[in-house]
Structure formats: structure tokens, C-alpha cells
């Protein structure tokens, strides 16, 4: 029997779907969680963790067969894994490859950490909004009270740990 090469061992090619590459090592399960993938949906999912990466040292990869991502999903992935790239696969070929981008403004996805913030007052009709202050490390600032939020807190909120 032919010995499978290293590439094949890690990444069996998928026919149609999405490959999320360059996820910071150890963050693949968070990506699945925010996409709402439990494994019981029926489509094939491959998770590769802690493989060598020229850019990141170590990285994770997630492959999902038969699923395309919505804009909101991509925004969430960007907040969890700002280095990620998203490859769309059609008939075994990569038809598009793009880096995720942390939006300049994030509306609604997150809540402010400051309990005294207007966005945390239960009956006021106000949607939390954040501005991206820095990408590495990722820091967001509440547009209402000015409180800043780091990457750990962002992940904690998005995956609802």
C-alpha cells in the first residue's frame, strides 16, 4: 500500500464547501461553535489542529462540506480568528480565497462589559456598537461608554462559554 503523504493525512480534499484555514492554533472548536456546527447536521466536517504553519507557527484548519458561509458568519470568524482565510471549494477546486476582515464597526453581536453602560439598560431601545481600535491584539471599544474589550472577552461572548 502506498504511504499517504503528509498533506493527505491532514486534509482529504472536499468536493464542494468551505475550508477555513490559518485559524490560530487551538481555536478551531470555537469556530465550529459560532457556526453552530455540532456534527449532527449531517455534512462532513474535518478539523485539523496544531499543524505547522509558516505564518503562524501552529494553526488549525476547519473543512466543511456542503456549507457556504453568510456575511455574519464571516464577521464572527474574523472576531474569533482574525488571521483566518476562507477558501470556497467547487468541484474540488478552490474558486475563491479570501482573508477574513475584522469590521471597523460591530453592531449587535457583542455586549458591553460595563454594567453602567446605556447599552446594558434592559428597556432602552439601543443596540450595542463597537469600534475596532487595534487588530493585533484585537481590541474593541464601546461607542457609548468607551470601555474597551480584549480578544479573550470577545471569544467568551461569541462562544458563550
Amino acid at each position, binding site marked *: 500500500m502506498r504511504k499517504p503523504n503528509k498533506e493527505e493525512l491532514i486534509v482529504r480534499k472536499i468536493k464542494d464547501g468551505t475550508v477555513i484555514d490559518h485559524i490560530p492554533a487551538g481555536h478551531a472548536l470555537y469556530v465550529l461553535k459560532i457556526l453552530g456546527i455540532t456534527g449532527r447536521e449531517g455534512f462532513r466536517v474535518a478539523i485539523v489542529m496544531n499543524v505547522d504553519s509558516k505564518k503562524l507557527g501552529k494553526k488549525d484548519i476547519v473543512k466543511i462540506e456542503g456549507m457556504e458561509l453568510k456575511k455574519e458568519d464571516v464577521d464572527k470568524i474574523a472576531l474569533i480568528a482574525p488571521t483566518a482565510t476562507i477558501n470556497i471549494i467547487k468541484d474540488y477546486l478552490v474558486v475563491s480565497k479570501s482573508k477574513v476582515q475584522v469590521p471597523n464597526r460591530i453592531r449587535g453581536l457583542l455586549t458591553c462589559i460595563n454594567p453602567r453602560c446605556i447599552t446594558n439598560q434592559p428597556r432602552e431601545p439601543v443596540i450595542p456598537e463597537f469600534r475596532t481600535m487595534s487588530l493585533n491584539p484585537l481590541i474593541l471599544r464601546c461607542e457609548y461608554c*468607551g470601555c474597551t474589550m480584549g480578544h479573550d472577552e470577545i471569544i467568551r461572548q461569541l462562544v458563550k462559554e
Partner: protein
Amino acid sequence: MWYNRDVITILDFSREELEEVFETADDMLKYSHSRLDILKGKVMALAFFEPSTRTRLSFETAMIRLGGDVIGFSEVSTTSIAKGETLADTIRMLDSYADIIVIRHSIEGAAKFAAEIAESPVINAGDGTRHHPTQAMIDLYTIRRNFEDIDGLTIGVLGDLKYGRAATSFIYGVSLYNIKKLYLISPPLLSTRKEVRDHLKLRGIAFEEVERLDDVIEELDVLYVTRIQRERFPDPAEYEKVRGSYRVTPESLKKVKRDLIILHPLPRVDELHHEVDRTKHAKYFEQARYGVPVRMALLKLILAGDRV
């Protein structure tokens, strides 16, 4: 430039825009004991969800001296808010009555939210521990009246820099100028919030956090004093231990620069010894007097624009 604008934080404005307020305030000084009719027929609504004496009265006086009228409330217990009305609905109501709304609230970001709801311009008269932009304008104006230029000065801010909105707004305000150095003087427990330090770094302001006033007082051109509240300390013994280091007394002024000016947003408790009042450094009563002309200038520019 100012017509119809909201005033939420001092950082919404450029030095040039502030200069326009200061020049208008110079004019208004002449009228701070008479009555103009520039804003005749205009109504200002005061929405003071948190009590205040100085800020409220000086806004009220400013509007009256410009010929306008004032409505509003200065505590919530007698209003519909006490019955559970939302801030949003209260603002909608005031917006339908008034041409400008001045709001003070204990919730952070309340003024920005009010400005999104109201069609009339909104002035933030203090939101929680965050911003107090009109106070910062008065502070900067006082410096400008005493020195030719704010650029090049060494400025110290003393007291509760973490929760004090006047101190924070003042720090943001001086960050618009090319000051020589900024000393942030406080016990570590009450030091400036990270977002404020990040802002200073981004602006390239030379600043240093220090614990003792004595170590830096000789270098200062401006000393901005604020109150340290006992309640901020989980341990009362800790408060007793540090309070002395943050009090300005005649003794602490022995080695200061000849032209040092001392500011304080008032009211004070015991952080400024009353004997300091008699020194030529004490400028806090002068600063308090500028509350009306600076607010007159703001109201005039927002409601009437540049026209006289």
C-alpha cells in the same frame, strides 16, 4: 461650525472649534451680568437625572442671559421616569418641547444615546464617570485666560482619575494641545483608566503616572485638583493613609513656579486647604465664574450659529 451640533465629548471638537467657543466667551464676559436677546424665543430643556447645583444653575443662567427660556427637571423622583419611563421616551418628550436638551445622567453613554434620539442638539452635562465636556471647555478657557498658550505647559491632574469625569474630560481636553508634559497624580487604586492612557499614547502626549504630588509640583504650570471620595476605597484605613498626599496646603506650595495656577471643578471638600484660596495661584473661583460665559458661548454658537 457649531450650529445645531451635539456636545457629547470634548474629543468631538478640534482646537480651532474650541478657539471659536473661547473667542465667543471673551465676548460674552461683557454680558454675564446683563441680558441679551440673541436666543429670544428659544427653549432649553434641562434633563438632570442626577442632582447638580453648579452645572445646572450655570446653564440656566447662561440661557436666561441670552434671552431664552428654560424648562426641565433636576431630580427624577417627581417625574414620569420615577414611574418607569425609559430615557428614550423622556428624551422624545423634551425634544418635542425644546430647541436644545442638556442632560446629566448616571448611566454611561446616556448623552450619546439621547443625541441619537433627539432631533434637537444635545449637550452632555455629565454621564456617569465618563464625560463632562462643558466643564473641560471651562477648564481650558481658564488656562487660556491665564497663559498666552496652552501649548508647551506642564500640567498635573490630581485626585480620582479613574471615576472622576471632570478629571477625565480635562485630560482628554489637554490632549488636543501640544503640552510639554502631563502628570497623572493619584493613588494606584484610582489611576487613569486604560482607555484614557491608550488615547494619550495614540495622541503622542508625554505623560507620567505618579503617586505623590510633592515629587512633581515644582515642575507644574497648571495643577488640576479633584476630590478623592472615601467610598472608592474598599478599606477605610487605606483611605486615611493616602488622603494626606492628595491635599494641597500652603506648605505643599513652597517650591512651586511663580506662575503656577491651581484649578478645581468644585465643589471641594478638604483637598484644597482654604488658606490656598488667598494665594495668587488659586484660580478656581475665577474658573467657576467662567462657567456662565463659556456656556453662553456654546448655546449661542449651537442655537444661533456665527451670526451676532
